[in-house]
């Protein structure tokens, strides 16, 4: 036994054959240890869902292999399926069933019975706060509740591996917040591996310990969200709001500092003290410009309302990674 819960080895999926075929997933390899919450990032059509479908055994890979808890998906599909909780894209469920009967079905299909089954269902219901809608047909539930039914089904058997395809897609901000809280809670124990796909970058920062970016079926980055953000040109950029004396060319002053690459104007606002200017000063790669800016501001005696240093912007990195990926 390795301590890797998921191991992908050059996993590849080609849809169709001949000239019209699509290489949806192209030699994806990575492994995930217990306790990791992996954010699987990529633009639409990058191959996220296809990769997840191969891990869960819904689609057979064209080549390469996927192992879950040491079991090969192709060789022992039932062993793998028993160890995975899966929330497919859009959280499909039998529309005319109630959450109660749906969860009962899933529990039986997973071989549970009697008080163990009752206990597992009750626990999943309370974790996803489904108590109020247990007897209502699923197709009459709101999107948020439908998603929770899908999540309840996925965590019913306390799986060591949890795979969620766009778990917060299409939810309103409160529902998103709820689902993320639940994901963090599920990750909490540290024995479980969680993979969630998303194209919402704030989600990765909010819940993931690791991020893998894929574009055109290939892995283009694998790092922690903080490391990834640090690749941004906004890494260590300084955003300041200040009220300089009228007529001061502050952008030029900042631009003259050593290590400054450019200055972005974020707008002005009129206050009782004068015009407040907000801008982001972007450093050249690897430079730390915060001390120089602090010193400049102090020496000129400008009134500073706000000043902060950025860790970097994931969306910026994401765009860069996935658009260069698209060129080859």
């Amino acid at each position, binding site marked *: 036994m390795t301590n890797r819960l998921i191991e992908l080895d050059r996993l590849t999926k080609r849809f169709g054959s001949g000239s019209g075929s699509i290489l949806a997933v192209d030699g994806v390899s990575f492994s995930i240890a217990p306790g990791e919450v992996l954010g699987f990032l990529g633009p639409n059509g990058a191959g996220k869902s296809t990769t997840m479908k191969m891990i869960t*055994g819904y689609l057979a890979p064209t080549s390469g292999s996927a192992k879950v808890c040491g079991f090969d998906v192709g060789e022992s599909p039932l062993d793998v*399926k028993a160890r995975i909780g899966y929330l*497919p894209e859009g959280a499909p469920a039998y529309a005319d069933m109630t959450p109660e009967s749906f969860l009962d*079905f899933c529990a039986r*299909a*997973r*071989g549970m019975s009697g008080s163990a089954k009752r206990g597992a269902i009750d626990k999943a219901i309370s974790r996803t706060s489904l108590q109020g809608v247990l007897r209502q047909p699923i197709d009459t539930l709101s999107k948020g509740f439908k998603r929770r039914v899908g999540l309840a089904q996925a965590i019913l058997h306390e799986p060591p591996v949890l795979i969620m395809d766009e778990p917060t897609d299409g939810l309103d901000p409160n529902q998103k917040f709820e689902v993320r809280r639940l994901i963090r809670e599920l990750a909490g124990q540290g024995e479980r591996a969680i993979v969630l796909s998303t194209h919402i970058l704030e989600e990765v920062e909010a819940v993931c310990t690791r991020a893998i970016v894929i574009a055109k079926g290939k892995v283009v980055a694998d790092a922690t969200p903080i490391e990834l953000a640090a690749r941004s040109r906004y890494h260590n950029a300084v955003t300041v709001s200040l009220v300089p004396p009228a007529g001061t060319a502050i952008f030029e002053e900042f631009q003259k500092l050593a290590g400054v690459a450019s200055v972005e104007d974020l707008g002005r606002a009129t206050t009782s003290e004068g015009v407040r200017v907000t801008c982001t000063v972007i450093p050249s790669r690897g430079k730390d410009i915060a001390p120089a800016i602090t010193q400049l501001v102090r020496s000129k005696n400008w009134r500073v309302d706000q000043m902060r240093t950025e860790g970097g912007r994931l969306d910026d990195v994401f765009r860069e990674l996935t658009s260069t990926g698209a060129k080859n």
Partner: protein
Amino acid sequence: MQGWTAVLRRELAGYFVTPVAYVFIIIFLILSGVFTFEIGGFFEARQADLRSFFTFQPWLFMCLIPAIAMRLWAEERRSGTLELLSTLPITRLGAVVGKYLAAWIFTTLAIVLTFPLWITVNYLGHPDNGAILTGYVGSVLMAGSFLAIGACASAATRSQVVAFILAVVVCFGFLLAGLSPVLDFFQGWAPQGVVDTIASFSFLTRFDSIGKGVIDARDLIFFGSLIVTCLVLNAALLERGK
């Protein structure tokens, strides 16, 4: 095959949470009555048996059973629940068998609910109850065969309408196979072996002989192997076009 009972249970319960089941049973019973008493000339024949009931049944099943079967897999594909079902620790054949058996149990229930007809003939005279019983066995077998064909058609497509039409056409073919105009058509030019093979696929011939009170092992084997073949094909079709 683990987990198939969960599928069977869910499916069976599913028939009764929507009005579909009740509508189907009521239509089936009304049409059975209409065919038996009005069109079949039950009273004019002045015979206390269920011949007219069984005569029309294959044609009734040809239209009604594909309607039950069409949603089996097409609906799972359309709603995305096929993905959910396929990632539960159940074998594909287990899911196919669970769903199929639930549909078969349901149609058997509909067939059993025609028992007032049986009571009526017994009230009016002294029918051959043995032949009636084997007639019912034949009904259940034929319904099961049509269902297996319909389930296959449903697995082959995402559209319920296409699944329905496909199933009706194939069922119709199996019914036609035994009729003499069809066999005469082949008789002229096809080798005798082909004609015999076509004739042996006839549901009608087998259904009639079972209905006369003779349950031949060959008929059971025919219907049984047809059902098994369809279910295996059904499982294979699910793998395709995901």
